C-alpha cells in the first residue's frame, strides 16, 4: 500500500482547514519556506484512511482477547457525549466560570472513581497508564521527602509485574527491588519480609495479579509495607476484575492509577488518546498535580494543591476521555459496574474451562478476569510455539492473546475475553482454538506458515527493531 507521500501530486489539495477566526500574529522566527506536505485531494485522503482501516483488526471487527488490555466494547453513547459542543468546543484557557459543566464532569468522575477504588482524591492529568504510574511514584516520593525521610529510595516490584512498573520507578529516580513470585504466581511473603527496610519507599502491585489470580494475602502484604514505613501503589491494569466487589483502598493501597481506556470503555492506543488518572488517600492529596477541579460555594474552580508535584501534563489531561468514562459509569450505575466485573470473571473462567480440554493452563484454580496458558508441551512435542498459534488465530479473524507475557511463564498466551463478549462468541473462539490445536498435532508446518489470509504475512520484527525506518525522504 502506498504512503500519502507517494500519492502526492503537485498542485492537488483540499481546504479542510477552517478560515482563520482569531487575530493573526507574526512570530519572530518565521519559516523561510513553506512546509513541504503531500498534496492530495480530500477524496483520496479519505480513501487512503478507509483502506488502512480495512487492514486493521479492532473490537468492532471481532474477538480481541488481548490479556491485560481489557479490550471491551466501547459504547457509541460515550462518543456522542464527548462530542457535545459544550465539551468539544471549549478552550483550555477559558476562564473557569465559563466552563462550569466541564469542571463538574471532572469532579463527578473523581467522586465515582474514588467510590469504586476506595480513594479520597484523584487527578486526571496523566495521559495513560505508565504516565499514571510515574505520577503516583512522584506522589510517594514527595510524601517521604515532606517528612524529611530521604533514605527511602527503593520500590519493591514482583517479577510478574507489568514491565512498565520497574520502568516508571526508574524514571522517577528510584531503585527497583525485584521479588520472585511463589508457585501460585502470588507474592512470596517471606521474600517480601526480607526485602523491606528503612530504604523502602513503597510497593507496586496489581491485584488480581498478572497471571489473573487474586492474591489472598493482600492485607498482610500491604501491612508489611506500611509497617516498614513504605506506601502501597496499586496498578489499576486489572481493575476490571473487581469493580464494585472489592476496593484497592480497602486492600491497603495508598495510591492507584486507572486506565480509563481499559476498564471504563474509552478507546485504546491509536484510537485513544488514553487517560491514566491517579487516585490517592488523604495523606497524598497535598501533593497532587495542578488543575485539580473542586466544588466550592461559588461553583467549580481549579485548585492548586499546596505541596503539588507540579503539572505532569498541560492543563487537565485528556478531558474528552473523562467524559466518555463518566458516561460509561452513569450508563451502568452501581449495579451495572459490579455486574460488568462479575461477567468479566465469568467469561474468563468459562473460556479457560473450555480451552483447558486441549491446552495447559499455567495456574490451577478459579481465575479472575484473565488466565495464562503455557504452550511449552506443544512446542516440545510438535514444534509449535505460542507465536505460531497466535498467527493462526489471525487467519481465523481473532486478535491473538498477549504473547510471551508474563515472563515467568514459558510460551505464554494470556487471554482476557472481557464481559462484553457473548457466550456464542466465546464458544466460537473455543472451537477455533480447538481446531488450531488439532492442526498443530497433525500438521505443524501449516502453523509455521500462518497467517496466510491477512494483508501482510509474518512481519520481520527483528529487522524492524534493528533497522527501524522512521522517516520518509519527501
Amino acid at each position, binding site marked *: 500500500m502506498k504512503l500519502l507521500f507517494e500519492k502526492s501530486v503537485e498542485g492537488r489539495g483540499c481546504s479542510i482547514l477552517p478560515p482563520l477566526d482569531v487575530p493573526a500574529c507574526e512570530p519572530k522566527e518565521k519559516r523561510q519556506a513553506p512546509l513541504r506536505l503531500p498534496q492530495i485531494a480530500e477524496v483520496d485522503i479519505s480513501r487512503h484512511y478507509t483502506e488502512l482501516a480495512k487492514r486493521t483488526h479492532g473490537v468492532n471487527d471481532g474477538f480481541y482477547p488481548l490479556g491485560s488490555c481489557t479490550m471491551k466494547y466501547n459504547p457509541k453513547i460515550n462518543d456522542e457525549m464527548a462530542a457535545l459542543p459544550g465539551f468539544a468546543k471549549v478552550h483550555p484557557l477559558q476562564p473557569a466560570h465559563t466552563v462550569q459543566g466541564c469542571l463538574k464532569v471532572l469532579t463527578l468522575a473523581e467522586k465515582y472513581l474514588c467510590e469504586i477504588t476506595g480513594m479520597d482524591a484523584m487527578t486526571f492529568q496523566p495521559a495513560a497508564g505508565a504516565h499514571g504510574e510515574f505520577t503516583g511514584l512522584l506522589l510517594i516520593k514527595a510524601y517521604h521527602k515532606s517528612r524529611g525521610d530521604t533514605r527511602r529510595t527503593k520500590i519493591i516490584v514482583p517479577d510478574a509485574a507489568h514491565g512498565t512498573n520497574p520502568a516508571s520507578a526508574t524514571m522517577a529516580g528510584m531503585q527497583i527491588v525485584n521479588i520472585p513470585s511463589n508457585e501460585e504466581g502470588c507474592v512470596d511473603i517471606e521474600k517480601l519480609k526480607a526485602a523491606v527496610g528503612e530504604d523502602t519507599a513503597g510497593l507496586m502491585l496489581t491485584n488480581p495479579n498478572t497471571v489473573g489470580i487474586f492474591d489472598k494475602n493482600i492485607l498482610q502484604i500491604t501491612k508489611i509495607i506500611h509497617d516498614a514505613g513504605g506506601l502501597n501503589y496499586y496498578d489499576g491494569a486489572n481493575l476490571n476484575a473487581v469493580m464494585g466487589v472489592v476496593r484497592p483502598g480497602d486492600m491497603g493501597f495508598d495510591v492507584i492509577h486507572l486506565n480509563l481506556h481499559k476498564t471504563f470503555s474509552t478507546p485504546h492506543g491509536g484510537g485513544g488518546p488514553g487517560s491514566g488518572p491517579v487516585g490517592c488517600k488523604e495523606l497524598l492529596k497535598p501533593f497532587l498535580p495542578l488543575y485539580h477541579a473542586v466544588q466550592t460555594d461559588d461553583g467549580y474552580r481549579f485548585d492548586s494543591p499546596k505541596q503539588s508535584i507540579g503539572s505532569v501534563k498541560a492543563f487537565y489531561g485528556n478531558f474528552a476521555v473523562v467524559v466518555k468514562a463518566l458516561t460509561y459509569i452513569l450508563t451502568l450505575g452501581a449495579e451495572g459496574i459490579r455486574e460488568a466485573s462479575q461477567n468479566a470473571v465469568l467469561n474468563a473462567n468459562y473460556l479457560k474451562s473450555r480451552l483447558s480440554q486441549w491446552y495447559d493452563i499455567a495456574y490451577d484454580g478459579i481465575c479472575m478476569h484473565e488466565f495464562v496458558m503455557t504452550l511449552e508441551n506443544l512446542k516440545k512435542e510438535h514444534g509449535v510455539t505460542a507465536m505460531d498459534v497466535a498467527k493462526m488465530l489471525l487467519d481465523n479473524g481473532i486478535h491473538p492473546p498477549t504473547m510471551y507475557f508474563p515472563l515467568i511463564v514459558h510460551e505464554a498466551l494470556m487471554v482476557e475475553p472481557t464481559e462484553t463478549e457473548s457466550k456464542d462468541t466465546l464458544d466460537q473462539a473455543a472451537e477455533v482454538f480447538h481446531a488450531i490445536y488439532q492442526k498443530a498435532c497433525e500438521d505443524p508446518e501449516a502453523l509455521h506458515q500462518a497467517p496466510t489470509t491477512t494483508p501482510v504475512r509474518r512481519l520481520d*520484527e527483528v529487522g524492524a527493531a*534493528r533497522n527501524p525506518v522512521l522517516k520518509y525522504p519527501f
Partner: protein
Amino acid sequence: MNHPQELKYTRSHEWVKMVDDTTALVGLTDYAQHSLGDLVFVNLPMVGDPVTKEEAFGDVESVKAVSDVFSPFDGEVSKVNEELLDEPGKINADPYGAWLIEVSNISGQEELLSAEDYEKVCQEEE
C-alpha cells in the same frame, strides 16, 4: 547445544573465560541466545564500573522480552565489547566469540559450573 569444555558457566546462563587469574571475559551462552531469540538491543556498563556477583550488569533485548545479564563475580569492568551495541545479532551468530565485558580484580568465582554441570542445568530447564 554448544557449550565449550574450556569455559565456566553460571546458572543464569552466562559463560566465563579466564584471561588470567583475576581477569575474565563474560558472555551469554548458546542456550541463552537460543532461548531469547534474535537480539535487537544490548545495554552494557562503562569501563571502570564495579560489578557485583549475581547482580545485573547489563541487559539484552529480543523482540519477546528484555532480560538482565548477571555478573558471575565481584570485580571491575576493564573492557566493554562496544561492537555489540551496533550489532547485537553477533551474540546470536557467535555466542562464544561475542563477549560482553571483561572484568578485572575478580573474586568469588569459585562456584562457577563446568560445561557438564551447566548442561544439566539447561536440561532441567527444558
